[in-house]
């Protein structure tokens, strides 16, 4: 099979070369500590008395995770290889840079590798008398049944969940409070995606799954994990309806409730298609008398060049609305 076309120099150097470019492009937002090339830290985030919010995971999902590092959101991110959890050391490096003496909260998507590496990092920090707690995100409703929420993956809804926790930390709330709000945000965020074509790892440049032309896979994960249903490609409205139905079926929203919506590109699906999907989301929510408080449309959590999209909905209450509206200033995401 032919190799996929990528603008890279060396597949094994892709992550480090990307980081060099990101630091060069955003010097006012991001820096890296000495001898910690895989820890990316917010210039104006960490400060004395503030809970340090550390996010992270594998590369290949940009702007997730490092694009959400900045004042008002995450204080630092640990960067892994493509689709692979970072080892414990960069997580520790990120936590030390984020530490303001009020404790560290780790937040990342719920994947076995990430859990092991972040847990090892927490054990290492404990030896330095730094408390690190963990909230994993589990917003992908296609990845496990509703009664097994703790087994679900974390995907694009991360941006809302991290945002809520980052705002709480920026308001100088205690570790208990930041953790509570992070869990609350996760409990009220729902995502489902659809994949139209595969992505490929820079090291292999081979499609990482087979999806014949003319087919789509509903519920596919952001690393190409098989989803819930494969079938012929349908219209934007039909696909959006299937996803919105699944989300509304879990969300338990009443008429008059408010939500935040993210229509996310998995990589190569363009804004045109995302806005077509968003139009249908808005129509469906209006019909259910659910108000869209804020909407994000674009690439927020990608899977390299995968084609496809996901829809995330956060079911807002007063507290979460305040947290989402709180200003943040990250290299790749701003509010206020």
């Amino acid at each position, binding site marked *: 099979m032919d190799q996929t076309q990528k603008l890279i120099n060396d597949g*094994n150097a892709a992550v480090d070369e990307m980081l060099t470019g990101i630091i060069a492009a955003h010097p006012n937002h991001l820096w890296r500590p000495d001898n910690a090339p895989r820890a990316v830290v917010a210039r104006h985030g960490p400060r004395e008395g503030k809970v340090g919010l550390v996010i992270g995971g594998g590369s290949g999902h940009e702007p997730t995770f490092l694009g959400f590092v900045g004042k008002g959101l995450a204080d630092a991110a640990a960067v892994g290889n493509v689709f*692979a959890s970072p*080892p414990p050391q960069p997580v520790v490096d990120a936590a030390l840079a984020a530490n303001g003496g009020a404790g560290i909260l780790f937040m990342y998507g719920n994947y*076995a590798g990430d859990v092991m590496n972040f847990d090892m990092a927490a054990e290492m920090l404990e030896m330095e008398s730094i408390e690190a707690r963990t909230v994993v995100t589990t917003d992908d409703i296609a990845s496990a049944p509703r009664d097994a929420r703790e087994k679900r993956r974390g995907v694009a809804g991360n941006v809302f969940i991290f945002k809520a926790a980052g705002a709480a930390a920026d308001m100088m709330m205690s570790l208990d409070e930041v953790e509570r709000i992070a869990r609350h945000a996760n409990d009220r965020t729902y995502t489902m995606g659809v994949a139209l074509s595969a992505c490929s790892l820079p090291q292999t440049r081979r499609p990482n*799954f087979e999806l014949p032309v003319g087919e789509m896979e509903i519920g596919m994960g952001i690393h190409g*994990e098989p989803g819930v249903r494969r079938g012929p490609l349908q219209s934007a409205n039909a696909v959006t309806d299937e996803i919105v139905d699944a989300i509304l079926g879990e969300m338990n929203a009443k008429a008059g409730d408010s939500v935040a919506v993210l229509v996310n590109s998995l990589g190569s699906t363009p804004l045109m298609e995302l806005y077509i999907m968003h139009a249908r989301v808005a129509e469906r929510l209006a019909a259910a008398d659910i108000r869209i408080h804020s909407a994000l449309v674009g690439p927020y959590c990608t899977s390299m060049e995968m084609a496809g999209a996901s829809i995330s909905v956060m079911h807002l209450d007063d507290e979460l609305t305040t947290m989402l509206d709180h200003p943040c200033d990250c290299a790749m995401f701003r509010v206020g």
Partner: protein
Amino acid sequence: MDFTTSDLQALLTDLADLMRAERDHLCALDGAIGDADHGIAMEQGMVAAAAAAREVTDGTLQDIFNAAAKGFLNAVGASSGPLYATAFMRAGKALGPEKSVPRDSLRQVIVAMAEGIAHRGKAEAGQKTMLDAWLPAAEAASAGADPSAIAAAATEGAEATSGMVAALGRAARLGDRSLGHPDPGAVSAAMIVGVICKALAAS
């Protein structure tokens, strides 16, 4: 003939060479039920482990295993990083601060690696993970089976994962769709056991 520090360095280099050779095969197996990167993680991890091991110039077997653990972990992270780092650290503890041990001690290495992986991954037999190769190998090793029988136990264990439904890791989300595919972590585990068994058999 005893098993020495230079034997251990050579063994780790053999593992790195094997994982490099099998990288694309392991990635393809992973692509069927996971995210297609297992071969990359195993290659990067074992290459880094072997390089770190070679840098230990005047250490013990335990020092070399600990260096390999750190090298593997820091190179890959992922799932295999913590699992094989813990396995190597347990193996080092099993051999202790010695420069040379009887070759039969490699049985304890297999047992210790299996225990380390079970401890870190919190998995059990039958969940379609690398443990399904490691546990039968450890059982055979502690029962005194000859090297080829230990290796065969690991290979049979890996093959048996085709008939299992994944309960842990990324493939767990597939449910019955993981049936018919071997677990790539179990396949690479059987390869690793095979290399250790070759060293166990050498005299």
